[in-house]
């Protein structure tokens, strides 16, 4: 009886959570289905879920409208570089804020937090001027270097480092490790969930960025995927068919990364071997 109730409960629980997940996913499913319809069907009113015939012309047409191959290469190269760079710079800075005593630490940290409170819309022009003075407009530097410091990432990792038991580090110090050694050998391996989280957010943020990429690049060879998507939309008209197809292909890389990076969130910390 009890076992029966338990499995019934489990089934109900699964039904509920899958229903909610499906509802959350519905807009994406709709996007995928739409990308396989022809324009007439997309604009059908009231809208119809399923395409009458699966069509992949939209993908072909979208890719013919702009050099998306190059755009993908740029987006992925920039996003990967920024992600690794940010993991490095943020974890170093976060370690300093979380574990090292130095004068002005609180003030500097507040300054970091404070800059997050100024919306990017007003800092865009001075940032651009800085790149211009450095001669970096329309280069990969412009897309990569400004992303190498992040107050968000530093804050995120600092919060996480604070939850790591200090005893583990003390043991390493006693063994003669330097600060860098402790960060590299003790703190970072224990921080995989936070690092994976930051990596996904950073990758996604860079990959999906539109305005900054638009402002700092001019030539087609430097353009990114999000700029490519904008080709299908102007003030008055939108080419839904191609836009949807291109959006689906722009979403999938991040979905895949997220799907596989999850391993690290789920693994988490197994403290079983460290029972001091």
């Amino acid at each position, binding site marked *: 009886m009890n076992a029966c109730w338990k499995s019934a409960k489990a089934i109900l629980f699964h039904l509920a959570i899958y229903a909610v997940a499906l509802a959350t996913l519905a807009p994406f499913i709709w*996007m995928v289905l739409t990308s396989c319809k022809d324009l007439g069907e997309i604009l059908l009113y009231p809208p119809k879920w399923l395409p009458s015939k699966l069509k992949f012309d939209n993908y072909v047409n979208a890719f013919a409208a702009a050099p998306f191959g190059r755009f993908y290469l740029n987006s992925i190269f920039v996003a990967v570089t920024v992600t690794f760079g940010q993991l490095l710079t943020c974890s170093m800075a976060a370690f300093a804020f979380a574990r090292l005593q130095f004068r002005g630490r609180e003030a500097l940290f507040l300054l970091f937090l404070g800059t997050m409170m100024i919306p990017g819309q007003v*800092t865009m022009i001075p940032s651009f001027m800085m790149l211009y003075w450095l001669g970096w407009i329309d280069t990969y530097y412009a897309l990569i270097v400004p992303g190498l410091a992040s107050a968000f990432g530093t804050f995120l990792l600092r919060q996480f480092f604070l939850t790591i038991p200090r005893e583990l580090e003390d043991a390493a110090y006693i063994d003669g490790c330097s600060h860098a050694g402790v960060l590299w050998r003790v703190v970072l391996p224990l921080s995989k969930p936070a690092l994976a989280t930051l990596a996904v957010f950073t990758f996604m943020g860079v990959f999906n960025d539109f305005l900054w990429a638009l402002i700092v690049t001019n030539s087609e060879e430097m353009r990114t995927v999000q700029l490519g998507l904008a080709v299908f939309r102007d003030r008055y008209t939108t080419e839904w068919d191609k836009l949807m197809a291109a959006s689906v292909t722009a979403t999938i890389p991040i979905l895949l990364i997220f799907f596989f990076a999850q391993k690290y969130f789920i693994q988490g910390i197994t403290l079983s071997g460290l029972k001091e």
Partner: protein
Amino acid sequence: MPFQVTKKSRPLIYQQGRSAILFLSPTLLVFSAFILFPVLFSFYLSFHKWNMFSQERAFVGLENYTRVLQSAEFWSVLKNTAVYTLGTVPLNMAFALLVAYFLHKKVFGKKFLRTAFFTPVIISAVAAAVIWRWIYEPNFGLLNYFLSWFGLPSVNWLNDPTAAMSALIIMGVWKTFGVNMVLFAAGLEAIPQHYYEAAEIDGAGKWSKFWNITLPLLSPTTFFIVVMSIIGSFQVFDIVYVLTSGGPLGTTKVLVFYLYEQAFKFFEMGYASAVAYLLFALIFILTLLQIRFLQRRVHYT
């Protein structure tokens, strides 16, 4: 000291300052060029009149600030922003924690489910807005269809000035709760299992474990999420821009949208910078309050 962590004597204490400089230098270098300098420059601009096209910037003292504070539109926009924040942050966090908590347990297809809940974060705001416009469509939209199952009347979500903010909040929660879900998930994973085992030996129930172990040990993550969510929702822009553009009748016009409009529609960069600094002051005070009241309850190991 709000950020003080219990001080214990440690080896290498004398080298800490030097190491700190070393560890912070890459970040500080980029930070000063691409974050600090632009932020200070826009502070400078907030005392000037500048239309962005010309090279001339006229010093106007506090005029931009007084003009902002005297503008009726600024106050109504501020109110809209507060409503949006109060509407999204609690919903967003509750939903994110709930999902993260359930997915932390044994669930079939965990990876798929997590990806599904994270998908809204990934979809570009433009594509998402297109889809949500269909969902909110008054006659055939999914949402009204869904409401009709419960005998509820249909709502003109995007045309009706009294409904548009709710529509924005719903889409806002949908679009962003995945971020907090992932953060909560990472936080939950970090809680050492042996705490639960110890509690079980003491005969603690599910609810008491959640209340006495999960929540306190999750508090550094929760603190981070509260601070970031409030900053994020005070700065909401993308989804407003693509879903409602501040309409109907300005009922969904939020601060950053207003700022953007002043800067890039009317080219009043000085005025827009003043709005940005007032927003900064507001968020800064809110964050300090959070640090004051929440940090005390944050449990660090």
